[in-house]
């Protein structure tokens, strides 16, 4: 009786997990399917679940825009911004985790509070700053913005990971004559590597998906994939199939990247969870 109940419980929990997974994945699945429909089919009511797949939208997307130019910009900007943010957040998180002062907690909260500001609230000042420094429509401009916007959350994450590292290990390093630089690079970083990797991966994903600043601060030379997607929305005329095809092409690299690195990501996010 108890065994039967446990089995039923497992089935129920498994079913619920599948339902949630499908619920979360459904918009992506629908987007992929819509990319293979004709424009009238893409917007038909009721929606067509069975249809003749066509590559016409993909052909048109490739004929109309230079996908590789946008994709290269996305890769360059995301990688550079993530590296820059990691390099800046490691010393910041180290100082806060191992050399806390009276205002460390307040500083951490203040840093996080900058994430609560809607970006549109600072659009005009940032735009004017970018204009006067010649950073409009440059990859450098977006790298700087993405680094700064992701920095608070990355410092927080690394601070949490570093706090999980036992202090006696660092002290042992110092006893053996390690400098601060050696202590960080040769003792702390190898220990916290899963956490640093997952922080970097999260930063990559945040940079890749960011749309507000890329739409407002770039036009062509430095425009990443969100701008590519936006260009397929039409004020007059059907565009859902083409938009879905463009969106699928835009999210495909980061989906593959996420799939390949999911083990690292989960390991990092659960780092120190069980001691």
């Amino acid at each position, binding site marked *: 009786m108890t065994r039967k109940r446990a089995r039923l419980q497992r089935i129920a929990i498994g079913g619920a997990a599948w339902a949630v997974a499908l619920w979360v994945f459904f918009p992506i699945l629908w987007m992929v399917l819509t990319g293979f429909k004709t424009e009238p089919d893409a917007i038909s009511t009721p929606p067509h679940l069975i249809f003749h797949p066509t590559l016409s939208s993909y052909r048109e997307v490739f004929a109309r825009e230079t996908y590789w130019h946008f994709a290269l910009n996305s890769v360059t900007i995301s990688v550079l911004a993530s590296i*820059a943010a990691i390099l800046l957040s490691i010393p910041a998180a180290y100082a806060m985790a191992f050399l806390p002062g009276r205002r460390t907690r307040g500083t951490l909260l203040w840093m996080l509070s900058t994430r609560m500001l809607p970006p549109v609230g600072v659009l005009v000042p940032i735009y004017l700053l970018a204009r006067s420094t010649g950073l409009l429509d440059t990859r450098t401009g977006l790298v700087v913005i993405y680094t700064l916007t992701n920095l608070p959350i990355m410092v927080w994450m690394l601070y949490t990971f570093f706090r999980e590292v036992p202090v006696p290990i660092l002290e042992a390093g110092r006893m053996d004559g390690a400098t*601060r630089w050696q202590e960080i690079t040769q003792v702390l970083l190898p220990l916290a590597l899963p956490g640093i990797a997952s922080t970097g991966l999260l930063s990559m994903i945040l940079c890749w998906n960011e749309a507000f600043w890329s*739409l407002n601060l770039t036009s062509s030379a430095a425009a990443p994939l969100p701008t590519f997607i936006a260009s397929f929305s039409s004020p007059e005329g059907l565009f859902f199939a083409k938009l879905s095809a463009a969106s699928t092409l835009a999210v495909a690299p980061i989906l593959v990247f996420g799939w390949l690195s999911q083990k690292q990501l989960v390991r990092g996010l659960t780092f120190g969870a069980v001691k």
Partner: protein
Amino acid sequence: MRVGSPPARIFKQALRRCAGLSMLVLAAGPAHAASTLTIATVNNADMVIMKQLSGEFEKSHPDIHLNWVTLEENVLRQRVTTDIATRSGQFDILTIGNYEVPIWAKQGWLAALSPDAAYDADDILPSVKAGLTVDGKLYALPFYAESVMTYYRKDLFAKAGLTMPDAPTYDQIRTFADKITDKGNQVYGLCLRGKPGWGENMAYVTSLVNTFGGQWFDMAWRPMLDSAEWKAALTWYVGALKADGPPGATSNGFNENLALFGSGHCGMWIDSTVAGGLLFDPAQSHVAGNVGFAAAPLGPYGKGPTWLWSWNLAIPASSSHTADAQTFVTWATSKEYVRLVARTHGWVAVPAGTRLSTYDSAEYQKAAPFASFVHTAIDRADPNGPTKQPRPYGGAQFVAIPQFQAIGTQVGQIVAAALSGQTSVDQALTTAQASVTRTVRQSGLMR
């Protein structure tokens, strides 16, 4: 015992490592060509063709390279406004509507255009040209223009024994819609814009109110949304859509209604003339063989400005390539360009509503059965013509003042609330009147 390095040493080490990254980041910046024109545009059929054919321009003008930035309409408006207001000079050519042209020209944001005699500016449709002229100077050139008309399903009308007059009234439209509606088979007598926005539901509602004898403001800029004419127009709109419209009408803008009509779910649709080309195209419409068209319906007033929208190419005053930009703008809106489109994409694809010579062309009239109809609709749109009472503003389906984007969207949301049944028409108009009064008072238009 050493417990760590001095802070200055750590700082220097960090600085050295960051320098390498900075070099990498700076090296990633783009290189700019000297004679590159950056064109900000929307993704509509005419612009897609223009982009495809722009290679011809680059061939004949090897010193000018074109750089296209295609954006969603609202994003484009936001980007271009920010760019032009801050004089950033990101764009050399802008795609803007006839709503923005006079407002921006008066602000000194646009460069005046002076096309040569060969361009034949007198060939531009007079009502379209008037909307782009400020103090006798042209500030933009049109590449496409539209008005409003009524589309209907000939097969459904024949089945119901109905005949669509050339110029129907709104009473007749309601009667026809009631007879055609067959909700069991998902056939709705009437589809109209319901999605909130100054360029969505309020474009249609403003045109409707004009022909019902209403208007947005009196000569002292007092809002007139509490008038009997607004109430009659809105009551008709809400009543007709509730009785004969598709479910979820507040989500339907131009594209959604285009899809509904094209897939056979609408008996009638009153909207932009641009839909004609799409509905008659069998690749985009399942009812291409059964589409009929008539003039936009008339309300109790029977007159009033109807609808005139044009997409135009303009040059921001902040551009450093004004001469090259004018060379491209005049090429892209010329008679020669129209002929190039006809040669490469067929006459049905040529830009509509811009040039008299296009409508004089026998080939165009043959390829586009709705051509003369559109020409007449644009001619009669009368955007600066009289409403029932004198008005201090121009515009047909919009009010040509900078505040209208905000006002139109506010009222659009209130109208959508009435359509979805959240408020009554009376409540909606009271709220809208108060909201618009507050905005025009704050902006100093009304004292």
